[in-house]
């Protein structure tokens, strides 16, 4: 396996002066391509902050971050936006779909925003992804009419739309019942095995963590195990 990304001595402090809160304290981590890793740790350990930094949505206070050989610290907003669009997918705890759009329109978004329009090829791929997620009969449904589990599967399809190397999932099953949670995790595992997509999944659920091949413990702003 080759390194997909590597962060070294990451520090992140929110606020300043007496109200400053140091969330990451010299965290270092290396993820190999094709890994399926669970990010474990108590609330406030820095899991979400780490995912946000790895997703290029926020920069650390200090430290280095390289992904696919690109220095993410020195890149400007436009470069990070383009990189994120091409190489990183997100799955959030509360699915975070666009409420006024259908399932297909949500899934197609990452490609359409890059191409400037909904190409026939993009429509075909988003349909395929939704079929793979077991949502063939919900493709043109408004997302507001879908169940929680269905919405999260749409969110997974959207995260895969651009064929990203890395998918960051922040508590992707935290808002689902056990059956729906395992259904989503089975899908993620299948995609990881078949397509080699790297997943980093933040979770409190030990069963979810156990379904991943690697477990990364975070505590007090550092990797502890």
């Amino acid at each position, binding site marked *: 396996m080759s390194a997909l990304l590597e962060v070294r001595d990451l520090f992140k402090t929110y606020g300043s002066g007496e109200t400053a809160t140091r969330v990451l304290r010299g965290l270092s981590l290396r993820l190999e391509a094709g890994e399926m890793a669970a990010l474990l740790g108590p609330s406030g350990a820095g899991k979400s902050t780490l995912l946000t930094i790895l997703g290029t949505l926020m920069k650390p206070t200090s430290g280095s971050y390289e992904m696919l050989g690109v220095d993410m610290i020195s890149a400007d907003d*436009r470069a990070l*936006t383009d990189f994120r*669009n*091409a190489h990183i997918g997100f799955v959030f705890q509360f699915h975070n779909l*666009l409420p006024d759009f259908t399932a297909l329109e949500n899934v197609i*978004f990452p490609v359409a*925003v890059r191409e400037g329009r909904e190409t026939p090829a993009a429509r075909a791929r988003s349909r395929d992804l939704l079929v793979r997620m077991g949502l063939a009969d919900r493709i043109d449904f408004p997302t507001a009419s879908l169940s929680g589990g269905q919405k999260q599967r749409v969110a997974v399809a959207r995260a895969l739309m651009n064929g990203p190397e890395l998918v960051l999932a922040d508590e992707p099953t935290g808002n689902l019942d056990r059956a729906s949670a395992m259904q989503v995790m089975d899908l993620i595992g299948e995609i990881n095995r078949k397509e080699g997509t790297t997943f980093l999944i933040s979770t409190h659920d030990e069963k979810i963590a156990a379904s991943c091949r690697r477990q990364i413990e975070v505590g007090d702003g550092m990797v502890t195990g």
Partner: protein
Amino acid sequence: MLYALKIATRYLTANKAQTALLITGVAVGVFIFIFMSALIGGLAEFILSRTVGDLSHITIEAEDSDPAVLIAPEGHVLAITERGRTRTATVAEAETLLPLIEAVAGVRAVSPQITGAGFLTRGAQVSQVSVTGVEPGRESAILDLDGYMVEGSARLGSGLIVLGSDLADDLGLSPGQTVRLQSSDGVTALLTLTGVFETGNGAMDGTRAFVSLPVARTLFAMPQGVTQIEIKLNDLNAADATALRIRALTGLEAVPWTDGAEQLMEALNAQAQTGYFLKSFALVTIVIGVASALMLSTYRRRPEIGIMRAMGAGRNFIIFVFVAQGALIGLMGGLTGAGLGYLALLPFPSRDAFQPGTLPMDITQGSYGLAVMLTVMGAVLASILPARAASRVDPVTAIGQ
């Protein structure tokens, strides 16, 4: 950017009631803009037609020659010939110039005239009168004499005269009766009244008399030439430029109606300025309405903006989504307002048929295209601030909301 337009359209159609309300607000602003344009423009047209419509738009008057001066060999003035009370100067070459003037672009009618003063006598009644001799067949070329006739006809010819209503009343005259006219040159003629006109202008109705040009030649001992040439234009606002062209063409002093009408022009300008202010307020209202609505939309959609940013939408994409919403609102509101404005103006009489007591609305001066264009521009400008605010939304904070 086609995709950003789709997102913008979806946002507008997602909340139909709010969008409809917003478009209605913009349409009302545009409606006021168009209504004010038609009213101010129509009012200006109305005032001009009432004050200048019956006047000559350009007048060529014969210039009196300078008074003769007798100068002593030492250089001092010994005597000056005092100018006579009667008009003696003539436009001698009028016959030659008329076809040239008629060919000038924008000239609707040309009327060579001989004017002078005189006294009308009927029995013991004597009235001072201002006499205008016009070519038969051109009686209504400048003043719409036919339109103002209240008795008889405006037909002029040998031995015939047309009088203002007050003058006819003073003399107790009716069409078919005769009256004696003595000119300031001392020539007397017995004329038959063929018609009585009433313009509503007291000075004109009480002192003006029209005779044919040959009758005027006899009365004022002017066998050749005329004292003035009156010119009517298709567009009275073109008087200054056309007067300059006629001056260059004929070498004569062509005077536009605007000379000496400074107060009227100032009043019209002040009226136009008032219109600009009112229309500007309507536009400002539109801009504030659109800006506040989009600002609200930006705030409400912060989480979605955060998601789009996380999915790889750049700042410019977000800006375009919100500016496009502003442009669409402006366009739809502008077209709706323009359509409603046009429909509301339809029942008003046309500019040629303004009636006293009604609003002088001119449907042709609604400035529909300008209203729509300014509204779209205003709405786009109004959306820039909310759009920039949207593009600066921090995706991490927004998604966490």
